[in-house]
């Protein structure tokens, strides 16, 4: 994008459960998600319990960040937090670890981002040293 990007608002971590491992991971360029130790499955977004068993026997684990586009849209109308970002490509990415995550597809023409295209982790700078997980086409 040619225009100078303004700093984006940085979300406050741990608003409703402790999500600090996600944010610590992001700082180090790692995508860290919740993993149910009993059923050996990832879940996202983070929850207070395993959505599979209801237990709190969950931990945070790094994922590869590799996956494919499951669904995709391009946001074309202005809204809060979208200044200078339109058109904004958003995809539901199916990670190879078997969990889905919403992410922007960076530096891609919307017409290139089609379902089943392979993607890998990329980082979207928010402000200062805070970056947010996103994806790019491979």
């Amino acid at each position, binding site marked *: 994008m040619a225009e100078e990007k303004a700093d984006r608002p940085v979300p406050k971590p741990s608003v409703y459960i402790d999500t600090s491992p996600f944010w610590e991971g992001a700082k180090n360029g790692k995508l860290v998600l919740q993993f149910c130790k009993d059923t050996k499955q990832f879940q996202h977004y983070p929850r207070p319990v395993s959505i599979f068993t209801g237990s709190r026997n969950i931990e945070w684990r790094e994922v590869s960040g590799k996956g494919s586009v499951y669904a995709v849209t391009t*946001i074309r109308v202005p809204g809060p937090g979208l200044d200078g970002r339109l058109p904004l490509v958003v995809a539901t990415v199916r990670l190879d670890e078997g969990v889905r995550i919403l992410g922007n597809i960076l530096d891609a023409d919307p017409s290139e981002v089609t379902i089943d295209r392979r993607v890998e982790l990329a980082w979207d700078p928010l402000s200062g040293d805070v970056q947010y997980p996103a994806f790019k086409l491979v």
Partner: protein
Amino acid sequence: MTDKKKDIVIAGYSETAIDFKTGRSAYDLGGEALAKLLAATGIQKSAIDGLAVTTPLSECPNPFFAVYMTEALGITPTWLNYGGTGGCSATGGVARAASAIRDGHCEVVVVLSADAPSTSWRANYGAYRSEFQDPQGVQGPPATFGLLMSRYKHLYGLKQEALGKIAITQREHALHNDNAYSKFKTPITMADYEKSRVIADPLKLLDCVMFCDGANAFLVTSAKRAKELGLSKMVYPTAYAEVTNFNGTDSLAEITETGFSMIAPKVFKQSGLTAKDIKMFQPYDDFTVAVLMKFEDFGFCKRGQGSDFTLDTDLSFSGSLPLNTGGGQISAGQPGLASGGLNLAEAVRQMFGEGGSRQVKDPKNALVTGIGVIPYARNWGTSAAMILEA
């Protein structure tokens, strides 16, 4: 044989006009709906001993809104229900009222939904959204529906002219509806639909609802009590089913598979009807694709054939499957979370024979649906369906 229940009735309905930025509150709109309901049914307010209220976007910071509403209206209920399933709260309120009446908690219930989000939007969903959905720019339902539509299109194909036909048909119906938002009372053409601005690919502006202000109310009681009260017009809610967080423990569930696929067989079994028997379809219509997908889930056509079914079927009020005969929310305006009552009110109106210039010819039953809440990267949170029979 079925276990069709005909002990409970909806014996009255009312609606305010739908308008944008009225400057009014949910209390004021709700009060108007109640006064109209009393006038339409001729019952005394003192006869009401149950109240089901829908959580409104405009008053949701007050956890005691339902109790405040009893005071505002001067009603002393022995059963009070506060519905938090958004667009499923009206049909869900009727179903919960039926259970409460059968359990003896109350006899005469008003199911009241009023909201004024275009005047005062006060919702804050909190939870995961600020950390896990807002940074990506997914702030409202349109982006999530763009994603859902992309997936449907990928699997089955999605014909633009089918979605356009739903929008145009409902707009035609809104022209007959005195309560519809005045700015929507202009016909639209396929060219208008095609030119309509893309919001979140492939979702267009004319696929979407617009938040307005409005209210609706229903009188629910036993068939026996209705007769004692001298009420003559009534319909029977013979089937109801709902599900929330469908496929909620499957991280990889196909998002084009919705809760309606689970509850449609239930309402058909309860009523003993099939899709072929349905005389009118009043589905919750936040977006045109939700209507198209419900044609499939309720078995009007097979999965993936929604576009062709839409194009091959006369969906006008005089057609073979009358669709949202008051214009639906898309063309009458969405009265916030009172939205589910809009589709329900139109069904009851038609079955009472009060459809005026848009009257359905043989209104002996209706299928009504609700949708509540748009979750993270799926379809919708709650799905509800009700069948009404004469």
